[in-house]
């Protein structure tokens, strides 16, 4: 036999606002949202309700009633989020808890109440705990979800309906208590059916013809003649493993063993769920009450214990065991879905390769920081500093081919360096140049090739590049900045060395 508890949060959103902003207590306020071009009241506080402000009113009307009305934003997703959190909390009362939008919870309390002594104590505990935490609730317990729901919301009687007593409990209640469509309820009101007892004994064929099959279904659900779906919430279990030690651990070897064990447990779970960790945190609880914490990050989801161990290995030296560590907790706060295995079927070797390389890069970043690794892709620019752009990930592929028709030096100086040249005007390559005190006599030269600044990116003078070779065979990339002028001579720079 099933027993269900319905919890009704009478002012869910308002209570939540009061919990967050206690200074609003005693003041009329409303939550409003824009709907069809006007502001609509979505929830009103108790003081506002006393003044006649109700959910569904246009905000302008509410303001006319109470000009000092405090108006807050209404978040349409907040109710669901709140209820989910409350449902997870309510798992202390029953392993099966369902969210009943928009303002309730349903607990499958079959076989749970005796742990609190009796059903009365059980319900009392739920209600008093919720009330203590600031939520105004009403609860009811019955054999069916429908009956519990109805009694919680519409009955002032004793909220525990004895097994099999649903019908007698429902008789006095209004038709709303059956969770019927608004149109059906309206029709019943017009017909003068103000209580359930006025129509529940009618033959089903009559009810079906007048009010539709839905009404019959709802009556069946409330009375327990037909089943009602119950979708319990499944709280996400954090990827966390604990390892307590018999004796306090003080050595690096001990910590290593603990990390290995924890990672094996964690990775077994991750593999089972098809997940990979992007971050892992190890907390070491010392006997003196201090907590030592080290964290690692990976560049791709990983469920390899040996790889993560290698990352942790680099950080073991930063753990101070002091008098000893009695508890290790390993947690993966950020996990991601692992790429599907299908990929591996057709690209076996390269996928393995990529994993191995990603693991290598993880180790490098773990030790030296994330900004040490660079990979470049071609960019559609002639300006040498902009001809390459940094790739974001290891698997980024170039959109265009690398150009091999442009002769570029294999060593490029970070900043062009000033040189002194003697060059015949106007456009001949220099005859010699002096760089860092050495004079290089130029024997061969290619050029000039002019590279203009891209005006949409930056201003500046163009560069006329020459590839030159001196008598020792050294090959240089030098350029003249701008034109020869009337009074000023353009400056010359060296920008790179050819192989």
């Amino acid at each position, binding site marked *: 036999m099933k027993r269900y508890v319905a919890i009704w949060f009478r002012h869910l959103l308002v209570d939540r606002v009061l919990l967050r902003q206690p200074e609003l207590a005693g003041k009329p306020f409303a939550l409003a949202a824009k709907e069809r071009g006007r502001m609509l009241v979505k929830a009103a506080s108790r003081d506002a309700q006393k003044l006649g402000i109700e959910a569904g009113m246009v905000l302008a009307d509410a303001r006319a009633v109470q000009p000092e009305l405090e108006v807050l934003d209404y978040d349409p997703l907040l109710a669901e989020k709140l209820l989910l959190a409350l449902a997870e909390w309510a798992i202390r009362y029953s392993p099966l808890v369902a969210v009943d939008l928009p303002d309730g919870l349903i607990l499958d309390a079959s076989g749970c109440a005796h742990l609190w002594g009796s059903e009365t104590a059980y319900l009392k505990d739920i209600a008093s705990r919720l009330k203590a935490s600031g939520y105004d609730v009403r609860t009811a317990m019955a054999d069916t979800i429908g009956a519990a729901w109805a009694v919680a919301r519409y009955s002032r009687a004793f909220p525990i309906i004895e097994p099999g007593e649903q019908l007698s409990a429902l008789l006095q209640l209004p038709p709303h208590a059956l969770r019927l469509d608004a149109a059906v309820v309206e029709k019943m009101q017009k017909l003068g059916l103000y209580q359930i007892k006025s129509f529940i004994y009618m033959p089903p064929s009559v009810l079906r013809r007048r009010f539709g099959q839905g009404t019959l279904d709802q009556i069946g659900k409330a009375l327990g003649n037909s089943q009602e779906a119950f979708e319990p919430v499944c709280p996400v279990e954090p990827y966390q493993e604990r390892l307590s030690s018999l004796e306090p651990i003080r050595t690096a070897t001990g910590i290593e063993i603990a990390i290995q064990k924890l990672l094996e447990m964690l990775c077994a779970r991750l593999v089972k769920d098809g997940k990979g960790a992007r971050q892992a945190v190890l907390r070491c609880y010392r006997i003196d009450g201090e907590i030592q914490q080290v964290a690692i990050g990976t560049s791709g989801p990983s469920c390899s214990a040996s790889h993560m161990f290698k990352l942790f290995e680099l950080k073991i030296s930063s753990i101070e065991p002091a008098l000893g560590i009695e508890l290790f907790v390993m947690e993966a706060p950020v996990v991601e879905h692992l790429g599907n295995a299908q990929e591996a079927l057709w690209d076996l070797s390269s996928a393995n390769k990529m994993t191995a*390389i990603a693991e290598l890069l993880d180790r*490098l970043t773990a030790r030296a920081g994330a900004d040490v690794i660079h990979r470049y892709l071609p960019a559609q620019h002639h300006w040498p500093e902009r001809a390459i752009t940094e790739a974001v990930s290891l698997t980024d592929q170039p959109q265009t081919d*690398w150009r091999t028709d442009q002769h570029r030096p*294999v060593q490029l100086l970070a900043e062009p360096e000033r040189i002194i040249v003697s060059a015949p005007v106007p456009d001949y390559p220099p005859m010699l140049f002096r760089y860092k005190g050495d004079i290089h006599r130029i024997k061969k030269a290619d050029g000039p090739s002019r590279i203009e600044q891209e005006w949409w990116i930056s201003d500046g003078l163009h560069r006329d590049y020459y590839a030159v070779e001196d*008598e020792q*065979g050294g*090959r240089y990339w030098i350029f003249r900045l701008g034109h020869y002028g009337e009074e000023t001579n353009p400056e010359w720079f060296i920008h790179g060395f050819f192989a």
Partner: protein
Amino acid sequence: METALKKSELVARLRSDILSLQGFRAPALGVKHDDFGLGPVMKTFPEGVFPRVGMHEFVSNSPEQTAATSGFMAALAGKMMKEDGLCVWLGRHRTVYPFALSQFGVSPDRVIFVDLKKDKDLLWAIEEALKCDALSAVVGEIKELNLTESRRLQLTVEESRVTGLLHRVAPRLSNPVAAVCRWRISPLPGASDLVLPGIGFPRWQVTIEKVRSGEPGSWRLEFRDGSFELITESVSFHQYTAKAG
């Protein structure tokens, strides 16, 4: 006579055993070995096989030599990477221009550059990279290196079989290190004919100063159209025209 023959056979076998213990492998019959287009340079290596399993040390003392060495190393790494290999290029003050690597047969997006600030980190990173057998080659640029450190790297290479190319940029002293061979690449003036103006293909004086179980030597090479070519003194334009009359 017979015993002498046996003895020489025995010595030859022992020699090849020692080589295989040192990480060299004799060319198996029918298997074509990669010579990376190095041609005549291959004769210097034991059994004529390029020692893939080993650290290669390159020394350069001037910016021109550094550039030539970088070009040569890029070309060599490109040959090792072939179509789909990946390479890691580690250094402290990296001046290599990734864009230019494509001229040496390396697709620059297949190279991962790692720029570190401390020598200690750099050595550690080179060792870690050499341990990763998914890589085709590891290029490291480092200033100072002592025997112990290089020995450690060499041992790592022997385990993972990833070729290491270590570039010692302007070292204060050229102390011996545990590498299979020491290269020195210097730029050579381009071809001196007058038919084509300009600076032409990169030309290098490639010197192997030391090589384990091999003969050191020096060659003049040109890198042309993706392969190394031995420079033969070509007929100059003047001689050509003179000959033609």
